[in-house]
């Protein structure tokens, strides 16, 4: 048993693919039509064999309710590791990303939180050296 895949629900798969590739800088790994939706996954160019992230439709009302409640409570639904959190914060802010929390030391990590424009809050973290 291995952990190779995880997923995030998104409001609009096309816009999500654009945000996760063009804004965040991930690479598209798969994109297949499935009925009215698509099976889309992205990977990090820094770790193409790491976990794949599926961008799934939030069409299921239960999923959407969960996503909205977590967002309102300020809870991120995914966390991505970075090696230079101040640099990423500046780069993404320049690209127009809205941050809820600027880089903040929190014990063994420094964290920042942004909105992915698809209905989720995402946490960035850098391990303290």
């Amino acid at each position, binding site marked *: 048993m291995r952990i190779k895949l995880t997923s995030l629900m998104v409001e609009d798969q096309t816009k999500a693919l654009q945000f996760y590739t063009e804004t965040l800088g991930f690479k598209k790994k798969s994109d297949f039509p499935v009925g009215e939706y698509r099976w889309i996954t992205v990977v990090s160019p820094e770790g193409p064999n790491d976990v794949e992230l599926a961008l799934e*439709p939030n069409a299921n009302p239960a999923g959407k309710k969960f996503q909205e409640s977590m967002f309102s409570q300020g809870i991120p639904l995914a966390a991505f590791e970075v090696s230079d959190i101040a640099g990423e914060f500046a780069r993404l802010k320049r690209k127009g990303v809205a941050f809820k929390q600027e880089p903040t030391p929190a014990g063994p990590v420094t964290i920042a939180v942004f909105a992915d424009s698809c209905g989720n809050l995402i946490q960035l973290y850098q391990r303290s050296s």
Partner: protein
Amino acid sequence: MLLKPDVFRGLCRARDMLHEVPERPWTVEEVAREAGISPFHFIRQFETVFGLTPHQYRIRSRLSRARRLLAAGRHSVTEVCVEVGFSSLGSFSDLFARRFGETPSDYRRRARAMVSVPGKLPRALFPGCLSLMASLPPSAFRSFREASALPL
């Protein structure tokens, strides 16, 4: 941009308001005021955070709700149109067709044919997390393996 805590709360409140169907729909200015954000900043901040303008968000919310109601099959297209907050059947049909690629009546007919348990939403139309994967053709998995072998 960096959102202050009260602005973040205001934007979430605004999003919840845009899901509601009051007797008289709120104007964007009213939603902004309720959220405690100036209308000038409100539209831009909302779009940056949620990917759609408040107006687009409200339309999308109504259309998604309409889709669920139509799939459940208990209401006519006209009833659904009014229920989700549209006043014109013509603009409801146009917006619905533009978003989902078929008219509300075509969708209703197609969805009803897929319902096996009355009142339950057909899973193919409202997938749960990762359930899409089960519908992929075997060739997709071959492609996964080929894709993993390729340098990016």
